[in-house]
Protein backbone atom coordinates (compact mmCIF):
# COMPACT_ATOMS: atom_id res chain seq x y z
CA UNK A 1 0.00 0.00 0.00
CA UNK A 2 1.38 3.37 -0.97
CA UNK A 3 0.66 6.75 0.57
CA UNK A 4 2.85 8.54 -1.92
CA UNK A 5 1.07 7.61 -5.13
CA UNK A 6 1.18 10.34 -7.67
CA UNK A 7 -1.71 11.36 -9.85
CA UNK A 8 0.09 9.89 -12.84
CA UNK A 9 0.55 6.53 -11.13
CA UNK A 10 -3.10 6.34 -10.19
CA UNK A 11 -4.18 7.39 -13.64
CA UNK A 12 -2.01 4.71 -15.23
CA UNK A 13 -3.40 2.10 -12.87
CA UNK A 14 -6.97 3.13 -13.67
CA UNK A 15 -6.21 3.06 -17.40
CA UNK A 16 -4.78 -0.44 -17.06
CA UNK A 17 -7.87 -1.63 -15.18
CA UNK A 18 -10.18 -0.18 -17.83
CA UNK A 19 -8.22 -1.96 -20.52
CA UNK A 20 -8.62 -5.22 -18.62
CA UNK A 21 -12.35 -4.53 -18.41
CA UNK A 22 -12.42 -4.54 -22.20
CA UNK A 23 -12.37 -0.81 -23.03
CA UNK A 24 -10.58 0.12 -26.27
CA UNK A 25 -7.07 1.27 -25.25
CA UNK A 26 -6.96 4.19 -27.70
CA UNK A 27 -10.23 5.55 -26.34
CA UNK A 28 -9.08 5.65 -22.73
CA UNK A 29 -8.24 9.18 -21.60
CA UNK A 30 -9.01 11.41 -18.60
CA UNK A 31 -11.86 13.00 -20.53
CA UNK A 32 -13.41 9.73 -21.68
CA UNK A 33 -16.80 8.96 -20.19
CA UNK A 34 -17.30 5.52 -18.69
CA UNK A 35 -20.49 5.08 -20.65
CA UNK A 36 -18.66 5.67 -23.93
CA UNK A 37 -16.05 3.12 -22.87
CA UNK A 38 -18.85 0.63 -22.17
CA UNK A 39 -17.80 0.50 -18.53
CA UNK A 40 -20.78 0.03 -16.25
CA UNK A 41 -21.58 -0.03 -12.54
CA UNK A 42 -20.33 -3.61 -12.10
CA UNK A 43 -16.96 -2.61 -13.58
CA UNK A 44 -16.80 0.42 -11.29
CA UNK A 45 -17.24 -1.81 -8.23
CA UNK A 46 -14.21 -3.77 -9.40
CA UNK A 47 -12.31 -0.54 -10.00
CA UNK A 48 -13.11 0.50 -6.43
CA UNK A 49 -11.77 -2.85 -5.19
CA UNK A 50 -8.53 -2.32 -7.09
CA UNK A 51 -7.87 1.18 -5.75
CA UNK A 52 -8.75 0.08 -2.27
CA UNK A 53 -6.30 -2.78 -2.45
CA UNK A 54 -3.50 -0.76 -4.00
CA UNK A 55 -3.93 2.68 -2.44
CA UNK A 56 -6.00 2.03 0.69
CA UNK A 57 -8.77 4.24 -0.61
CA UNK A 58 -12.24 3.20 0.45
CA UNK A 59 -14.92 4.11 -2.07
CA UNK A 60 -18.57 3.61 -1.32
CA UNK A 61 -21.38 3.44 -3.85
CA UNK A 62 -22.50 7.02 -3.10
CA UNK A 63 -18.94 8.31 -3.69
CA UNK A 64 -19.18 7.14 -7.28
CA UNK A 65 -22.45 8.97 -7.94
CA UNK A 66 -21.92 11.74 -10.43
CA UNK A 67 -18.56 10.33 -11.51
CA UNK A 68 -18.86 10.17 -15.27
CA UNK A 69 -15.34 10.46 -16.63
CA UNK A 70 -12.09 8.64 -16.04
CA UNK A 71 -10.49 11.88 -14.82
CA UNK A 72 -13.24 12.43 -12.25
CA UNK A 73 -12.62 8.93 -10.90
CA UNK A 74 -8.91 9.67 -10.58
CA UNK A 75 -9.73 12.96 -8.82
CA UNK A 76 -11.92 11.07 -6.40
CA UNK A 77 -9.17 8.60 -5.56
CA UNK A 78 -6.66 11.44 -5.11
CA UNK A 79 -9.01 13.24 -2.73
CA UNK A 80 -9.32 10.20 -0.53
CA UNK A 81 -5.70 9.11 -0.36
CA UNK A 82 -4.87 8.33 3.24
Amino acid at each position, binding site marked *: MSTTATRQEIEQRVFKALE*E*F*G*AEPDQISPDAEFEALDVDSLDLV*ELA*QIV*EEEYGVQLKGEDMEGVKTVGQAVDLVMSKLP
Partner: protein
Amino acid sequence: MTRTPVITGVGAVTPLGVGARTLHERWTAGRSGIEDGFGRASEFEPTDHLSIKEVRRSDRFTQLALAAAQEALEDAGWDGGTPGDPDRTACVIGTGIGGIGTLEGQHIVMRDQGAERISPLSIPLLMANAAAGVVAMKHDLRGQSFGTVSACAAGAHAIGTAARLIAYGDADSVVTGGSEAAITPLATAAFAKMDALSDSGISRPFDRRRDGFVMGEGAGILVLEEEEAAKERGARILGYVRGYASTSDAHHLTAPEPSGRGAAKAIELALKDADVSADDIVYVNAHGTSTPLNDRSETNAIKVALGEERASQVPVSSTKSAIGHLLGAAGAVEAIATLLALRDRIAPPTLNYEEPDDGLDLDYVPNEARPLQNGDARALGISNAFGFGGHNAVLCLEAS
Protein backbone atom coordinates in the same frame (compact mmCIF):
# COMPACT_ATOMS: atom_id res chain seq x y z
CA MET B 1 -52.97 -24.93 -37.98
CA THR B 2 -49.91 -26.96 -37.18
CA ARG B 3 -46.76 -25.01 -36.52
CA THR B 4 -43.76 -27.23 -37.24
CA PRO B 5 -40.34 -26.46 -35.73
CA VAL B 6 -37.55 -26.84 -38.28
CA ILE B 7 -33.82 -26.74 -37.62
CA THR B 8 -32.03 -24.13 -39.72
CA GLY B 9 -28.66 -23.83 -37.98
CA VAL B 10 -26.36 -25.73 -35.66
CA GLY B 11 -23.21 -24.87 -33.75
CA ALA B 12 -21.06 -26.81 -31.32
CA VAL B 13 -17.89 -26.59 -29.29
CA THR B 14 -16.82 -30.01 -28.05
CA PRO B 15 -13.76 -32.03 -27.10
CA LEU B 16 -13.53 -32.94 -30.79
CA GLY B 17 -13.03 -29.31 -31.72
CA VAL B 18 -14.85 -26.13 -32.62
CA GLY B 19 -17.77 -26.58 -34.98
CA ALA B 20 -20.80 -28.82 -35.34
CA ARG B 21 -19.55 -30.39 -38.53
CA THR B 22 -16.12 -30.90 -37.00
CA LEU B 23 -17.83 -32.93 -34.29
CA HIS B 24 -19.77 -34.96 -36.83
CA GLU B 25 -16.84 -35.60 -39.16
CA ARG B 26 -14.33 -36.47 -36.48
CA TRP B 27 -16.70 -38.70 -34.55
CA THR B 28 -17.74 -40.47 -37.76
CA ALA B 29 -14.05 -40.97 -38.58
CA GLY B 30 -13.64 -42.68 -35.22
CA ARG B 31 -11.60 -39.96 -33.55
CA SER B 32 -11.77 -39.35 -29.83
CA GLY B 33 -11.62 -36.02 -28.04
CA ILE B 34 -10.77 -37.62 -24.72
CA GLU B 35 -7.27 -37.12 -23.36
CA ASP B 36 -5.95 -38.15 -19.97
CA GLY B 37 -9.41 -39.18 -18.87
CA PHE B 38 -11.12 -35.88 -19.66
CA GLY B 39 -13.05 -34.53 -22.61
CA ARG B 40 -11.85 -30.95 -22.60
CA ALA B 41 -12.81 -28.47 -25.28
CA SER B 42 -9.10 -27.84 -25.72
CA GLU B 43 -9.34 -26.35 -29.22
CA PHE B 44 -11.60 -23.60 -27.90
CA GLU B 45 -9.75 -20.32 -27.41
CA PRO B 46 -12.26 -17.82 -25.95
CA THR B 47 -10.66 -14.69 -27.42
CA ASP B 48 -10.88 -16.19 -30.94
CA HIS B 49 -14.64 -15.90 -30.64
CA LEU B 50 -15.38 -13.26 -28.03
CA SER B 51 -14.32 -9.75 -27.09
CA ILE B 52 -12.23 -9.16 -23.96
CA LYS B 53 -15.32 -7.79 -22.27
CA GLU B 54 -17.42 -10.82 -23.20
CA VAL B 55 -14.74 -13.17 -21.92
CA ARG B 56 -14.46 -11.28 -18.64
CA ARG B 57 -18.19 -11.15 -18.18
CA SER B 58 -18.95 -14.79 -18.70
CA ASP B 59 -18.14 -18.06 -17.03
CA ARG B 60 -16.63 -20.67 -19.32
CA PHE B 61 -20.02 -22.37 -19.76
CA THR B 62 -21.43 -19.11 -21.14
CA GLN B 63 -18.36 -18.57 -23.32
CA LEU B 64 -18.88 -21.99 -24.88
CA ALA B 65 -22.56 -21.20 -25.46
CA LEU B 66 -21.74 -17.84 -27.05
CA ALA B 67 -19.31 -19.45 -29.49
CA ALA B 68 -21.71 -22.26 -30.39
CA ALA B 69 -24.55 -19.76 -30.80
CA GLN B 70 -22.46 -17.61 -33.11
CA GLU B 71 -21.82 -20.60 -35.34
CA ALA B 72 -25.47 -21.70 -35.26
CA LEU B 73 -26.77 -18.24 -36.16
CA GLU B 74 -24.31 -17.91 -39.03
CA ASP B 75 -25.23 -21.42 -40.16
CA ALA B 76 -28.90 -20.36 -40.18
CA GLY B 77 -28.05 -17.29 -42.24
CA TRP B 78 -28.84 -14.94 -39.37
CA ASP B 79 -25.69 -12.90 -39.90
CA GLY B 80 -27.69 -9.72 -40.30
CA GLY B 81 -29.74 -10.25 -37.13
CA THR B 82 -32.93 -12.15 -36.38
CA PRO B 83 -34.87 -12.62 -39.60
CA GLY B 84 -38.24 -12.17 -37.89
CA ASP B 85 -39.59 -10.05 -35.07
CA PRO B 86 -37.04 -10.01 -32.20
CA ASP B 87 -39.97 -9.99 -29.76
CA ARG B 88 -40.98 -13.39 -31.11
CA THR B 89 -37.48 -14.85 -30.98
CA ALA B 90 -36.79 -16.89 -27.86
CA CYS B 91 -33.67 -18.31 -26.22
CA VAL B 92 -33.68 -21.47 -24.11
CA ILE B 93 -30.34 -22.93 -23.04
CA GLY B 94 -29.89 -25.73 -20.53
CA THR B 95 -27.04 -26.50 -18.19
CA GLY B 96 -26.44 -29.08 -15.51
CA ILE B 97 -24.58 -26.90 -13.05
CA GLY B 98 -23.96 -23.45 -14.52
CA GLY B 99 -20.91 -21.41 -13.60
CA ILE B 100 -19.31 -23.71 -11.09
CA GLY B 101 -15.80 -22.61 -12.11
CA THR B 102 -16.71 -19.07 -11.05
CA LEU B 103 -18.27 -20.33 -7.84
CA GLU B 104 -15.19 -22.31 -6.87
CA GLY B 105 -12.82 -19.47 -7.78
CA GLN B 106 -14.76 -16.89 -5.82
CA HIS B 107 -15.01 -19.17 -2.81
CA ILE B 108 -11.23 -19.31 -2.75
CA VAL B 109 -11.09 -15.50 -2.94
CA MET B 110 -13.51 -15.25 -0.04
CA ARG B 111 -11.58 -17.74 2.08
CA ASP B 112 -8.15 -16.26 1.37
CA GLN B 113 -8.84 -12.55 0.95
CA GLY B 114 -12.19 -11.95 2.59
CA ALA B 115 -15.70 -11.05 1.50
CA GLU B 116 -14.67 -7.53 0.46
CA ARG B 117 -12.67 -8.94 -2.43
CA ILE B 118 -15.49 -10.96 -3.99
CA SER B 119 -16.12 -9.96 -7.58
CA PRO B 120 -19.38 -8.11 -8.21
CA LEU B 121 -19.63 -10.29 -11.32
CA SER B 122 -19.80 -13.51 -9.26
CA ILE B 123 -23.55 -14.03 -9.31
CA PRO B 124 -24.20 -12.95 -12.91
CA LEU B 125 -21.42 -15.29 -14.03
CA LEU B 126 -22.33 -18.33 -11.99
CA MET B 127 -26.12 -18.27 -12.35
CA ALA B 128 -27.41 -21.22 -14.36
CA ASN B 129 -29.45 -18.97 -16.67
CA ALA B 130 -26.40 -16.86 -17.61
CA ALA B 131 -25.87 -18.52 -20.98
CA ALA B 132 -29.50 -17.96 -22.01
CA GLY B 133 -29.42 -14.35 -20.82
CA VAL B 134 -26.10 -13.45 -22.40
CA VAL B 135 -26.84 -15.12 -25.75
CA ALA B 136 -30.22 -13.33 -25.87
CA MET B 137 -28.55 -10.04 -25.04
CA LYS B 138 -25.82 -10.40 -27.62
CA HIS B 139 -28.21 -11.23 -30.45
CA ASP B 140 -31.15 -9.05 -29.40
CA LEU B 141 -33.52 -11.99 -28.85
CA ARG B 142 -36.43 -10.38 -27.02
CA GLY B 143 -38.90 -13.21 -26.62
CA GLN B 144 -38.84 -15.68 -23.75
CA SER B 145 -35.40 -16.54 -22.48
CA PHE B 146 -34.49 -18.86 -19.66
CA GLY B 147 -32.36 -21.84 -18.72
CA THR B 148 -33.47 -25.40 -18.21
CA VAL B 149 -31.94 -27.30 -15.32
CA SER B 150 -32.29 -31.07 -15.27
CA ALA B 151 -28.72 -32.33 -14.92
CA CYS B 152 -27.71 -34.36 -17.96
CA ALA B 153 -31.12 -34.02 -19.61
CA ALA B 154 -31.02 -30.19 -19.58
CA GLY B 155 -29.94 -29.74 -23.20
CA ALA B 156 -32.67 -32.04 -24.49
CA HIS B 157 -35.26 -30.38 -22.25
CA ALA B 158 -34.22 -27.02 -23.69
CA ILE B 159 -34.66 -28.16 -27.29
CA GLY B 160 -37.95 -29.88 -26.55
CA THR B 161 -39.23 -26.80 -24.79
CA ALA B 162 -38.05 -24.62 -27.67
CA ALA B 163 -39.92 -26.81 -30.16
CA ARG B 164 -43.06 -26.44 -28.04
CA LEU B 165 -42.68 -22.65 -27.92
CA ILE B 166 -42.84 -22.64 -31.70
CA ALA B 167 -45.63 -25.22 -31.96
CA TYR B 168 -47.76 -23.39 -29.40
CA GLY B 169 -47.20 -20.06 -31.07
CA ASP B 170 -45.26 -18.35 -28.30
CA ALA B 171 -42.28 -17.82 -30.59
CA ASP B 172 -41.48 -17.92 -34.29
CA SER B 173 -37.87 -18.88 -33.75
CA VAL B 174 -35.75 -20.07 -30.84
CA VAL B 175 -32.02 -20.22 -30.20
CA THR B 176 -31.68 -23.28 -28.02
CA GLY B 177 -29.31 -25.92 -26.71
CA GLY B 178 -27.10 -26.64 -23.76
CA SER B 179 -23.76 -25.75 -22.28
CA GLU B 180 -21.48 -27.06 -19.57
CA ALA B 181 -18.00 -26.34 -18.19
CA ALA B 182 -17.74 -28.40 -15.05
CA ILE B 183 -14.27 -29.89 -15.30
CA THR B 184 -13.34 -28.14 -12.07
CA PRO B 185 -11.64 -29.47 -8.93
CA LEU B 186 -14.82 -29.61 -6.86
CA ALA B 187 -17.14 -31.01 -9.50
CA THR B 188 -14.58 -33.62 -10.57
CA ALA B 189 -13.93 -34.71 -7.01
CA ALA B 190 -17.63 -34.83 -6.24
CA PHE B 191 -18.52 -36.96 -9.27
CA ALA B 192 -15.59 -39.24 -8.43
CA LYS B 193 -16.77 -39.59 -4.85
CA MET B 194 -20.12 -40.94 -5.98
CA ASP B 195 -18.34 -43.52 -8.16
CA ALA B 196 -19.83 -42.04 -11.30
CA LEU B 197 -16.51 -41.34 -13.02
CA SER B 198 -14.47 -43.87 -14.92
CA ASP B 199 -11.37 -45.03 -13.06
CA SER B 200 -9.83 -46.19 -16.30
CA GLY B 201 -10.49 -42.83 -17.97
CA ILE B 202 -11.95 -44.68 -20.94
CA SER B 203 -15.44 -44.01 -22.20
CA ARG B 204 -16.72 -47.35 -23.51
CA PRO B 205 -20.49 -47.35 -23.45
CA PHE B 206 -22.21 -50.74 -23.45
CA ASP B 207 -18.89 -52.64 -23.20
CA ARG B 208 -18.64 -55.19 -20.41
CA ARG B 209 -15.65 -53.35 -18.94
CA ARG B 210 -17.31 -49.92 -18.74
CA ASP B 211 -16.58 -48.33 -15.39
CA GLY B 212 -18.18 -44.91 -15.34
CA PHE B 213 -18.37 -41.77 -17.44
CA VAL B 214 -15.59 -39.46 -18.57
CA MET B 215 -16.25 -35.81 -17.83
CA GLY B 216 -16.53 -33.59 -20.86
CA GLU B 217 -17.32 -29.94 -21.52
CA GLY B 218 -18.77 -28.00 -24.39
CA ALA B 219 -21.91 -26.52 -25.86
CA GLY B 220 -24.38 -27.24 -28.60
CA ILE B 221 -26.78 -24.65 -29.99
CA LEU B 222 -29.52 -25.03 -32.59
CA VAL B 223 -31.67 -22.48 -34.36
CA LEU B 224 -35.29 -23.58 -34.59
CA GLU B 225 -37.78 -21.74 -36.75
CA GLU B 226 -41.43 -22.15 -37.61
CA GLU B 227 -41.48 -24.01 -40.93
CA GLU B 228 -43.55 -21.60 -43.01
CA ALA B 229 -41.60 -18.56 -41.84
CA ALA B 230 -38.34 -20.37 -42.55
CA LYS B 231 -39.47 -21.31 -46.04
CA GLU B 232 -40.68 -17.81 -46.70
CA ARG B 233 -37.26 -16.36 -46.07
CA GLY B 234 -35.65 -19.10 -48.14
CA ALA B 235 -33.83 -20.71 -45.25
CA ARG B 236 -32.02 -23.99 -45.74
CA ILE B 237 -33.81 -26.57 -43.62
CA LEU B 238 -31.47 -29.08 -42.01
CA GLY B 239 -34.23 -31.09 -40.41
CA TYR B 240 -37.13 -31.21 -38.01
CA VAL B 241 -37.85 -31.66 -34.35
CA ARG B 242 -40.68 -34.12 -34.96
CA GLY B 243 -41.32 -35.26 -31.45
CA TYR B 244 -40.37 -34.68 -27.85
CA ALA B 245 -41.33 -36.21 -24.55
CA SER B 246 -40.13 -36.15 -21.01
CA THR B 247 -40.80 -38.34 -18.00
CA SER B 248 -39.44 -38.96 -14.53
CA ASP B 249 -38.22 -42.20 -12.99
CA ALA B 250 -39.42 -41.12 -9.53
CA HIS B 251 -37.05 -43.79 -8.32
CA HIS B 252 -33.66 -42.65 -7.01
CA LEU B 253 -31.59 -39.48 -6.69
CA THR B 254 -28.92 -40.70 -9.09
CA ALA B 255 -29.54 -44.29 -10.22
CA PRO B 256 -31.76 -44.96 -13.21
CA GLU B 257 -34.74 -47.22 -12.66
CA PRO B 258 -33.25 -50.63 -13.63
CA SER B 259 -35.99 -51.76 -16.00
CA GLY B 260 -35.76 -48.48 -17.92
CA ARG B 261 -39.46 -47.86 -17.32
CA GLY B 262 -39.31 -44.06 -17.31
CA ALA B 263 -36.87 -43.87 -20.20
CA ALA B 264 -38.97 -46.30 -22.26
CA LYS B 265 -42.06 -44.21 -21.59
CA ALA B 266 -40.26 -41.08 -22.77
CA ILE B 267 -39.20 -42.80 -26.01
CA GLU B 268 -42.73 -44.09 -26.60
CA LEU B 269 -44.26 -40.69 -26.00
CA ALA B 270 -41.71 -38.96 -28.24
CA LEU B 271 -42.59 -41.35 -31.08
CA LYS B 272 -46.27 -40.71 -30.45
CA ASP B 273 -45.67 -36.97 -30.47
CA ALA B 274 -43.88 -37.37 -33.80
CA ASP B 275 -46.71 -39.55 -35.07
CA VAL B 276 -44.29 -42.29 -36.13
CA SER B 277 -43.83 -45.93 -35.17
CA ALA B 278 -40.80 -47.80 -33.87
CA ASP B 279 -40.25 -49.20 -37.36
CA ASP B 280 -39.76 -45.67 -38.69
CA ILE B 281 -36.72 -45.08 -36.46
CA VAL B 282 -33.53 -45.74 -38.38
CA TYR B 283 -30.98 -44.58 -35.81
CA VAL B 284 -30.82 -44.24 -32.02
CA ASN B 285 -28.35 -41.85 -30.47
CA ALA B 286 -28.12 -43.31 -26.99
CA HIS B 287 -27.49 -41.47 -23.76
CA GLY B 288 -24.86 -44.23 -23.37
CA THR B 289 -22.82 -42.83 -20.51
CA SER B 290 -20.47 -45.79 -20.00
CA THR B 291 -21.74 -46.27 -16.46
CA PRO B 292 -22.70 -49.82 -15.52
CA LEU B 293 -26.26 -48.80 -14.57
CA ASN B 294 -27.23 -46.43 -17.38
CA ASP B 295 -26.16 -48.58 -20.27
CA ARG B 296 -28.06 -51.56 -18.93
CA SER B 297 -31.28 -49.73 -18.08
CA GLU B 298 -31.13 -47.77 -21.34
CA THR B 299 -30.74 -50.98 -23.32
CA ASN B 300 -33.83 -52.29 -21.54
CA ALA B 301 -35.69 -49.08 -22.28
CA ILE B 302 -34.89 -49.21 -25.99
CA LYS B 303 -36.13 -52.82 -26.14
CA VAL B 304 -39.34 -51.97 -24.32
CA ALA B 305 -40.05 -48.85 -26.35
CA LEU B 306 -39.13 -50.12 -29.82
CA GLY B 307 -39.99 -53.76 -29.27
CA GLU B 308 -37.38 -56.54 -29.13
CA GLU B 309 -37.35 -57.05 -32.88
CA ARG B 310 -36.95 -53.44 -33.97
CA ALA B 311 -34.50 -52.81 -31.13
CA SER B 312 -32.30 -55.62 -32.40
CA GLN B 313 -32.21 -54.12 -35.92
CA VAL B 314 -31.71 -50.42 -35.39
CA PRO B 315 -28.16 -49.06 -34.96
CA VAL B 316 -27.59 -47.56 -31.51
CA SER B 317 -24.45 -45.52 -30.79
CA SER B 318 -23.13 -43.22 -28.11
CA THR B 319 -21.50 -39.87 -28.85
CA LYS B 320 -20.06 -40.01 -25.33
CA SER B 321 -17.66 -42.71 -26.49
CA ALA B 322 -15.85 -39.96 -28.43
CA ILE B 323 -16.29 -36.85 -26.27
CA GLY B 324 -17.22 -38.03 -22.79
CA HIS B 325 -20.22 -36.81 -20.89
CA LEU B 326 -21.02 -33.15 -21.48
CA LEU B 327 -23.66 -33.20 -18.72
CA GLY B 328 -26.15 -30.39 -19.36
CA ALA B 329 -24.72 -29.84 -22.85
CA ALA B 330 -24.93 -33.54 -23.75
CA GLY B 331 -28.55 -33.58 -24.89
CA ALA B 332 -27.97 -30.62 -27.20
CA VAL B 333 -24.60 -31.67 -28.62
CA GLU B 334 -25.95 -35.17 -29.18
CA ALA B 335 -29.12 -33.87 -30.85
CA ILE B 336 -26.84 -32.05 -33.30
CA ALA B 337 -24.72 -35.18 -33.76
CA THR B 338 -27.92 -37.15 -34.38
CA LEU B 339 -29.21 -34.67 -36.94
CA LEU B 340 -25.96 -34.53 -38.90
CA ALA B 341 -25.64 -38.33 -38.83
CA LEU B 342 -29.18 -38.64 -40.18
CA ARG B 343 -28.43 -36.06 -42.85
CA ASP B 344 -25.46 -38.09 -44.03
CA ARG B 345 -27.42 -41.32 -43.61
CA ILE B 346 -24.70 -42.73 -41.44
CA ALA B 347 -24.52 -44.31 -37.98
CA PRO B 348 -21.39 -43.01 -36.24
CA PRO B 349 -19.60 -45.55 -34.06
CA THR B 350 -19.54 -46.41 -30.38
CA LEU B 351 -15.80 -46.20 -29.80
CA ASN B 352 -13.88 -48.54 -27.51
CA TYR B 353 -16.62 -51.17 -27.70
CA GLU B 354 -14.99 -54.58 -27.74
CA GLU B 355 -16.47 -56.91 -25.16
CA PRO B 356 -20.22 -57.54 -25.10
CA ASP B 357 -21.97 -57.65 -21.74
CA ASP B 358 -24.73 -60.09 -20.80
CA GLY B 359 -28.10 -58.73 -21.85
CA LEU B 360 -26.57 -55.74 -23.64
CA ASP B 361 -27.13 -57.13 -27.07
CA LEU B 362 -28.20 -54.28 -29.34
CA ASP B 363 -26.31 -53.22 -32.44
CA TYR B 364 -24.02 -50.63 -30.85
CA VAL B 365 -22.12 -49.88 -34.08
CA PRO B 366 -18.74 -50.85 -32.64
CA ASN B 367 -15.78 -48.68 -33.58
CA GLU B 368 -16.62 -48.00 -37.20
CA ALA B 369 -19.29 -45.85 -38.75
CA ARG B 370 -21.75 -47.56 -41.02
CA PRO B 371 -24.21 -46.31 -43.66
CA LEU B 372 -27.83 -46.31 -42.53
CA GLN B 373 -29.88 -48.92 -44.34
CA ASN B 374 -33.00 -46.84 -44.59
CA GLY B 375 -33.38 -46.92 -48.36
CA ASP B 376 -36.01 -44.39 -49.36
CA ALA B 377 -37.45 -44.25 -45.87
CA ARG B 378 -37.45 -41.05 -43.86
CA ALA B 379 -34.27 -40.28 -41.95
CA LEU B 380 -35.82 -40.42 -38.48
CA GLY B 381 -33.87 -40.93 -35.30
CA ILE B 382 -34.13 -40.44 -31.59
CA SER B 383 -31.71 -38.84 -29.18
CA ASN B 384 -31.92 -39.89 -25.54
CA ALA B 385 -30.91 -37.80 -22.54
CA PHE B 386 -31.31 -38.84 -18.93
CA GLY B 387 -30.27 -36.94 -15.83
CA PHE B 388 -29.58 -37.35 -12.13
CA GLY B 389 -32.87 -36.74 -10.42
CA GLY B 390 -34.54 -39.27 -12.70
CA HIS B 391 -35.20 -36.89 -15.58
CA ASN B 392 -35.71 -38.47 -18.99
CA ALA B 393 -35.96 -36.38 -22.15
CA VAL B 394 -36.17 -37.81 -25.65
CA LEU B 395 -36.14 -35.99 -28.97
CA CYS B 396 -37.33 -37.47 -32.24
CA LEU B 397 -35.47 -35.77 -35.08
CA GLU B 398 -35.75 -36.03 -38.82
CA ALA B 399 -33.14 -34.88 -41.32
CA SER B 400 -34.32 -33.38 -44.57
